[in-house]
């Protein structure tokens, strides 16, 4: 068991490295760097000047070396300019070059400096990740129990009226991405058109204080879409379990229907949905981005969009790292959970 965990964590690590390298590669392609030089320096730079600007800032080094610098395993470049000033990756403005550290990368906790927000990337991420964390928490609290409940109720008696209505509801929710449901919800509940001003259409105030008025719509929008797929998976799993032979055995033993569902079927039926829930996280990230943009909630997703649209390379890289790590951790939990919940595999 421990060997398994070790192997999976190792694999996760390698995946994270590969993925962050891919992001690094894509964000550091020449045209992006060119754009960076022109924004930071002078919009009318000639190509030669651009090259020189990039050179003196260490952007012309081989890709792998720069990736290593960013990681913190390769010592930073140092360059002595014509004006006698020493420049280096780790030499911050105002720092004495002599005492500046050699390694400054992710491993040392230095995530870089944001060109859009003009502060350290780590500060931004800490703050914004927290905000998104609250959003995700509420979404999970609403979505998971509802989805499971719908799935179990629908699947326990396949073909019944309850099943058909709940299934139709689930299909509608899977067809409604966040930008559709969000728009519809805002129009119905928060605009002057329909008049039901129950909730606010903007969640900016939720960044300081979460209330029903400002948080319900964002949470509902995300939960609405995410719940559909999980509910359908749960329903399929439940329906399959209910036709299994061991359920017939329980019925012929004299166990009542309620007990059959709760004591016999549930344990087996929930194995598959659990893994599905965990694997929903990558898609939920997309939802977070959309919802935060739609409702003006300046959390992690919103930051990601800002970084990408404004070519803020350092911020974008760090956001990617966080996103990738979150996804990989959920994958790991999903794998472990699957093994743990399924006695056949656990005991072999």
């Amino acid at each position, binding site marked *: 068991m421990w060997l398994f965990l070790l192997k999976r964590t190792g694999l996760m690590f390698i*995946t994270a490295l590969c993925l962050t390298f891919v*992001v690094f590669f894509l964000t550091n392609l020449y045209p992006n760097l060119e754009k960076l030089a022109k924004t930071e320096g002078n919009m009318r730079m000639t190509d030669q000047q651009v090259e020189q600007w990039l050179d003196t800032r260490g952007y012309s080094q081989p890709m792998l070396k720069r990736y290593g610098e960013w990681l913190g395993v390769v010592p930073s470049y140092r360059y002595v300019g014509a004006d006698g000033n020493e420049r280096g990756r780790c030499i911050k403005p105002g720092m004495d070059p002599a005492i500046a550290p050699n390694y400054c990368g992710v491993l040392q906790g230095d995530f870089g400096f944001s060109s859009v927000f003009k502060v350290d990337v780590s500060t931004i991420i800490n703050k914004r990740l927290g905000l998104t964390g609250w959003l995700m928490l509420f979404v999970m609290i609403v979505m998971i129990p509802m989805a499971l409940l719908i799935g179990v109720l629908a699947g326990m008696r396949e073909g019944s009226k309850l099943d058909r209505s709940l299934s139709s509801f689930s299909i509608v929710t899977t067809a409604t991405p966040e930008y559709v449901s969000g728009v*519809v919800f805002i129009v119905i509940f928060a*605009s002057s058109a329909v008049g039901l001003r129950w909730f606010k259409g903007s969640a900016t105030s939720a960044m300081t204080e979460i209330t029903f008025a400002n948080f319900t719509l964002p949470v509902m929008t995300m939960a609405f879409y995410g719940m559909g797929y999980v509910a359908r998976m749960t329903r399929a799993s439940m329906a399959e379990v209910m036709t299994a032979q061991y359920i017939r055995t329980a019925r012929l033993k004299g166990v009542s229907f309620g007990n059959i569902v709760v004591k016999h079927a549930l344990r087996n039926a929930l194995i598959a949905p659990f893994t599905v829930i965990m694997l929903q996280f990558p898609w939920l990230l997309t939802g977070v981005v959309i919802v935060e943009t739609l409702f003006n909630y300046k959390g992690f997703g919103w930051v990601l*969009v800002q970084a990408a649209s404004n070519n803020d390379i350092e911020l974008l890289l760090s956001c990617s790292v966080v996103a990738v790590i979150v996804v990989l951790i959920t994958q790991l939990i999903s794998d472990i959970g699957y093994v743990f919940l399924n006695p056949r595999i656990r005991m072999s």
Partner: protein
Amino acid sequence: MNSLTGWEIALQIGIQFTPVWVALAITLAASMYYKDRLGLYGHLFDSRVGITGLIIVLFWAFTAIFADLVATHDALSQIASMKNKKPGTQIRNAADGIYQYYLLGGDNLARDIFSRMVMGSRSVMIIAPAATAFAFMVGITLGLPAGFRGGKFDTSISFLANLVLAFPVILLFFLLVTPEIRATGVPLVLAGVLFLFPIVFFVVLFQSRFYTQPMKRNVYVATTLVLGFWAYSGLAFNADPLGVFYMDPNLLNIFVSVVFVNSPTVFRIVRGLALDIKTRDYVAAAQTRGEGSWYIMLWEILPNARGPLIVDFCLRIGYTTILLGTLGFFGLGVSPESPDWGMTINEGRKLMSIYPHLAIPPAVALMSLVLGLNLLADGLREQSLKD
């Protein structure tokens, strides 16, 4: 100046869709008549869910085909006085030959929302199924050997697939679908690789089946290669000598990204199906006959996996539609003025609280199409289980 009432708007819209209603009626009648001979498609008509889904999907398909007839105005033309006007507003001093009303109102740039919604269906109905088909080619060509043969190939490709799947989709889009990327040639490389798969697939298909009859085999393979590389040169590299196949570079970017994002999931599904089916006796029988691996994978395993794959195909077109909408929503669509649904929603949302009619039509249109696809997939799944 009078505006149309709600009922009149609905009536007019209904009339505009006449070509679609006619086509729909003909198709449905013909299908019902021949339903016994049409295999799985025919069985679809036995399921309520399936029929509902089919009607919705066909509705949008015909709308895309007859978009020019259904739309009242050109999707890009602007009439200054109609900026942000409510649905049903009449056009003052309308020029001759132009339809009198903006049926669903005007948008922020004074264009007709109804026409933009109708034209928007075209790009979706062309790109989504095509991208899904390509993703399937890639997924099948890689998933079959991974599931059937296993070994190092399986481990490495599964690792790559997991890599792509772990990548947050939205991040991938922001990185790949930018103007700067085009200059580096990364999309071209991806296109070059991904567009090869259909050619490889069909060549192997014919070779494995007809290798005992070289004459037949040569004919099939040669045709495939000629047609394939002709389309390939045009679509991927814009080097078609006859100028028939061409893809706008922006569109290429989007297309490649969507195919790239969808392929790993298809790969996983096909691999799972292959792992399951390869234990059957008829596969063992084929092996003992001395059949090659590719014959077994393409002609023994794949036809028997078609049920779940067809269902997934429909679902995936729906999912791709949502992806395309997401791209549009973040401004990564084909072009800034295109009537792409995602983009129109994004433009409309900024003024949503005052002018709800800006964002609602494309939102409802998108949702209805995806709903139709999901219902269709459900109906197919129900019926294929009964086979």
